[in-house]
């Protein structure tokens, strides 16, 4: 018997009514995600990646099609699904430790328990020693790791990450990629990662989905058959390079459509 998926996205579409008419952000997307699988979604900006993630996470509830968690329809936020946002999302009035302990505090855990758990998670993301620092005293990469630890603290079965490293410089991004690999080896977390970085997608994923530019459809799914554990060092390997080239070929077309659109809009506007 074939195992049933942890998360099933079935014929999901989303339209926005705007002043300039109807925009189709996501068009007929279907995807099955197995427990423990790591999937990346890659596509040019404006192709509907965030919209898709917000629907899966339960932040957007009006759409066509079905999103099922263990066969039950997702109709709002739920503890089984955790999200990490693209934007800076740490709480500036809480220390690193208090940020990570936040969901545990909301869930009513005792102080000792939540502090102990938050310490473990800060250690996991490589931030022990920074417990009592406020976000303003830390770098962008460290803040994003706090946000990841905070989401992991809630022990979601499915982790959604929307371009978590987009605002970071390349070196930090590579090192954080390694960190995510380590965490994934340890927790075997079912993960949906949105990115526009090809090597990041190849390094981290079991499967990479390429989305088309507006309307956002799934153009292709590529299985990444590289041995694990992986690290940023394997980026020099030939197999890695082949995957990157393959994805770029597909993505290039979509990206240039996006560029074209942006230029046309700039000329008009």
């Amino acid at each position, binding site marked *: 018997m074939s195992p049933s998926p942890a998360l099933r996205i079935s014929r999901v579409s989303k339209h926005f009514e705007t002043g300039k008419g109807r925009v189709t952000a996501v068009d007929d997307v279907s995807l099955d995600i197995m427990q423990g699988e790591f999937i990346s979604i890659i596509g040019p900006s404006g192709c509907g990646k965030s919209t898709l993630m917000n629907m899966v996470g*339960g*932040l957007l509830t009006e759409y066509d099609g079905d999103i099922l968690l263990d066969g039950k329809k997702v109709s709002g936020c739920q503890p089984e699904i955790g999200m990490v946002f693209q934007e800076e999302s740490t*709480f500036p009035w809480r220390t690193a430790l208090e940020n990570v302990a936040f969901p545990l505090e909301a869930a009513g855990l005792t102080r000792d328990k939540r502090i102990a758990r938050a310490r473990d998670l800060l250690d996991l993301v490589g931030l022990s020693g920074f417990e009592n620092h406020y976000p303003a005293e830390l770098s962008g990469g460290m803040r994003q790791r706090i946000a990841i630890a905070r989401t992991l603290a809630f022990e979601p079965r499915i982790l959604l990450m929307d371009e978590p490293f987009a605002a970071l410089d390349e070196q930090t991004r590579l090192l954080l990629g390694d960190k995510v690999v380590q965490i994934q080896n340890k927790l075997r977390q079912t993960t949906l990662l949105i990115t526009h970085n090809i090597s990041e997608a190849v390094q981290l994923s079991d499967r990479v989905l390429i989305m088309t530019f507006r309307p956002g459809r799934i153009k292709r799914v590529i299985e990444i058959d590289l041995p694990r554990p992986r690290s940023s060092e394997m980026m020099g390997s030939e197999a890695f390079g082949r995957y990157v080239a393959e994805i770029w070929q597909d993505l290039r077309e979509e990206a240039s459509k996006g560029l074209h659109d942006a230029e046309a809009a700039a000329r008009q506007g």
Partner: protein
Amino acid sequence: MPVWLIRPPPLLSRLLVFAVLLGVWEAASAAGMVSRFIAPPPSEIFPAIGLLYVDNELTARFLRTFGEVFAAAGIGSGLGMAIGWWLHHNRTAGAAYTDWIAASAAAPLVLLFPLFLVLFGRNAATIVAMGAVSVMPPVILKTKEGLDHVRSVLIDVGRTFSLTRWQQVRMILFPAALPTIFTGLRLGLVFALINVVGVEFLIGFGGMGLMIAELGDRFEIAGMYAAILFVVLCSATFFYLTEKLETWLLSAR
């Protein structure tokens, strides 16, 4: 010239300006350019503060006025934050009333004192009520502004952690808006002081405002200036302390 004279530190330069002004005033008075009757020289005003302490029960009046100020600030802040929350929460109400409240923040509300006199009588209630009313506009406006500008991603974080409505307010909205709300509270406190002293003066009841009126009536001009100076020093100290409190409370965020 020593360095501290060429580029003096802020506190020193502030005191320097103050000292120069006092010097000019003293000189003008000595030269007979300013009547001692309209504006006695500083050399008479400063000693008069000591006399106020002895003859006019400065401490009792001070405590009385500040009791009224804190009562007014407490009531006005509580009501103001509640109304600010409501204007944030209810878009229609926010759109309808925010401009009116902004206008009232700029209006001399103290002129409404006869109305309060009729409502509450010539007693502390009138003073506190008048003070509380003047505290409310800045607190309402800053509370609404702070809540309106909480970044939506922070609210989304709360939603993904399945926060209850009340947790969303207590753990995210309020702390995120606090720096802005605090600005409103500080302004409100200063408005409370101004209005409490003003109404005391106008209705002849209470602490330091009444004292200023009485000294004026008795033509103790140096004493009157001393009392005014004392109030000004109090409010400046007050403002300074709340600023320190704010930096301390909101440090590192």
